[in-house]
């Protein structure tokens, strides 16, 4: 009854990392609520897909296996999720804040008239009171809500953090970026149920309207998510030429290069280097922030770093408040010195 659902994204026949991370989060939410965790796996050739997900604590795996469900297109996946949800009436549905999740989530929420919060950085269960209009006496009327999903996300260019709730509509839907939640195997031998659905009952033939005629997926060019050391540049790098110094530093100290959104928007580097709420979330041992002021959206993607070193000529830069080491100086001056003294002392 009123389970927590995770929509599992599938590339080929492999469940995406982000979906696995959400299964772990979903398991915790389901435990708090005392309900079951269920997931949807939709694609082609999915025999045995449950082996990839069950161990994260899934009680029911809903498998939709049919030609035409991979590669993903909007309408068939919307139809199967919406029709399944009409039967199952979940209270929570989590999806990756990926191209697929951000294509599917809004369509499902529109069809079910349920609230959807994009790019959450934290999800919790909680109680609260909210004003729901005015009473007969003209005074605000409060209503108490229990066991609600609190959807927490930075908003407004990262200047505020908002907690979003949708108390009157189900399911409560949220998307979360890859790397924000942590995947943990619950039990290698976890016993859940596998339900193989008749796809035609959920997806009318007329829904297969978009044809994928060509498709190229490349493995990620960088290894930001797994890197032990990250050198990241912000708008304060000043130019593409200056930003390129970070690649030199990274090469010397065996690090990966990342960037803030401002640096990406300014054209200093490629989009896939972006760290933060709308980019990659990282947890390196060492994070060297070069000319990054530290908007909340950026910090949301790197605050779990072990040691944070901030190089900034603005001593009041917000990022300095979470830094372990602060170097007051310009990046032009400090970055070459880091390279020089690392080479000198690392023998």
């Amino acid at each position, binding site marked *: 009854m009123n389970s927590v659902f995770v929509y599992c994204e599938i590339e080929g026949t492999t469940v995406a990392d982000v979906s696995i991370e959400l299964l772990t989060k979903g398991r915790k939410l389901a435990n708090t609520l005392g309900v079951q965790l269920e997931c949807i796996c939709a694609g082609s050739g999915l025999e045995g897909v449950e082996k990839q997900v069950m161990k994260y604590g899934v009680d029911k795996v809903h498998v939709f296996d049919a030609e035409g469900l991979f*590669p993903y297109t*909007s309408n068939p996946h919307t139809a199967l999720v919406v029709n399944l949800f009409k039967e199952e009436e979940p209270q929570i549905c989590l999806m990756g804040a*990926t*191209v*697929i999740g*951000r*294509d599917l989530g*809004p*369509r499902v*929420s*529109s069809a079910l008239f349920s*609230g*959807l*919060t*994009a*790019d959450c950085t934290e999800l919790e269960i909680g109680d609260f009171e*909210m004003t729901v209009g005015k009473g007969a006496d003209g005074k605000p009327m409060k209503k108490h809500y229990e066991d609600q999903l609190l959807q927490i996300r930075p*908003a*407004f*260019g990262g200047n*505020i*953090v*908002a*907690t*979003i*709730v*949708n108390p009157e*509509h189900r399911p409560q839907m949220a998307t979360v970026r890859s790397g924000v939640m942590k995947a943990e195997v619950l039990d290698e031998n976890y016993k859940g149920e596998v339900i193989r659905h008749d796809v035609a009952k959920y997806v009318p033939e007329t829904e297969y*309207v*978009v044809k994928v*005629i*060509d*498709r*190229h*997926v*490349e493995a*990620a060019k960088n290894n930001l998510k797994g890197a032990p050391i990250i050198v990241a540049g912000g708008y304060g790098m000043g130019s593409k030429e200056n930003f390129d110094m970070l690649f030199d530093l990274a090469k010397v*100290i065996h690090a990966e290069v990342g960037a803030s959104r*401002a640096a990406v928007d300014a054209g200093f580097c490629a*989009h896939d280097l972006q760290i933060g709420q709308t980019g990659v979330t990282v947890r390196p*041992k*060492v994070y060297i922030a070069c000319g990054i002021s530290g908007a909340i959206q950026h910090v949301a993607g790197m605050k779990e770093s072990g*040691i944070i*070193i901030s190089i900034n000529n603005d001593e009041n830069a*917000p990022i300095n*408040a*979470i830094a*372990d*080491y*602060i*170097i*007051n100086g310009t990046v032009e001056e*400090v970055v070459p*010195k*880091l390279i020089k*003294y*690392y080479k*000198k*002392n*690392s023998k």
Partner: protein
Amino acid sequence: MKIVVLAKQVPDTRNVGPDAMTPEGTVNRAALPAVFNPEDLNALEQALRLKEQFPGSTISVVTMGLPKSAEVIREALYRGADAGYVVTDRCLGGADTLATSYTLSQAIRKIGDFDIILGGRQAIDGDTAQVGPQIAEKLGLTQVTYAEEILSVDPENKKIVIKRHIDGGVETVEAPLPLVVTVNGSAAPCRPRNAKRVMKYKNATAAAERTPATAEKYAALIAKKPFLDITQWGAADIDADPAQIGKAGSPTNVKAVQNIVFKAKDSRTMTSSDADVEGLIIELLNEKIIG
């Protein structure tokens, strides 16, 4: 072809200055300039290219917002759009993405005849990317999100081929017309204003922008040139269900807003001198933090 472009006027959150937040921790909207949502401009460019390719096409731009959001309509007219619609009404305030998409879908229904609806992938004040797909769902259309380029259109057979981004790659899809397409910021940038069109449309206004002092002047202009009257619709004009607009039509509620103050850590501050930088490197190496 009949093309609809969705545009939003947004506070420019890309260049947030120190005065963007009030001391109470709320957003100081007055300190942020209002701009044409950047990815909506990418969408407009795709529309303008279709119009060039299919002479006789028309581009209608739709926006929902405060009366001053008519500014984005004028901007689109300067760059080549043919008509604009401002949906503005007090009862539309407090809308989340679902109520917004319902309202815009009602406006699009009223415009009626269309082959393609284009919009930016997302707006920079919310970054949700939800309104495009929700409009598609409400109008019973399919969608192509994260579009990079429209490669070809076959109006006769009602087919469109689009290159789009996916996670870690690109794909090319063929979809039926009509549909909703949302365009990425990495798509071709929008062409600049055209000087002749600026002259033609600089006095174009929506009724809500006109004050008692200027009403007479604009009425005289519109009498001569009807295209200077930007169509303005309220909730009643688009036959909107009161339960689906504004706050009532919004399942999501903002429970709390917090201005984030980072907790200060124990930190060491140093200068950029050679001695300080070398000292730090030696310390990090000795403690096996790097190296």
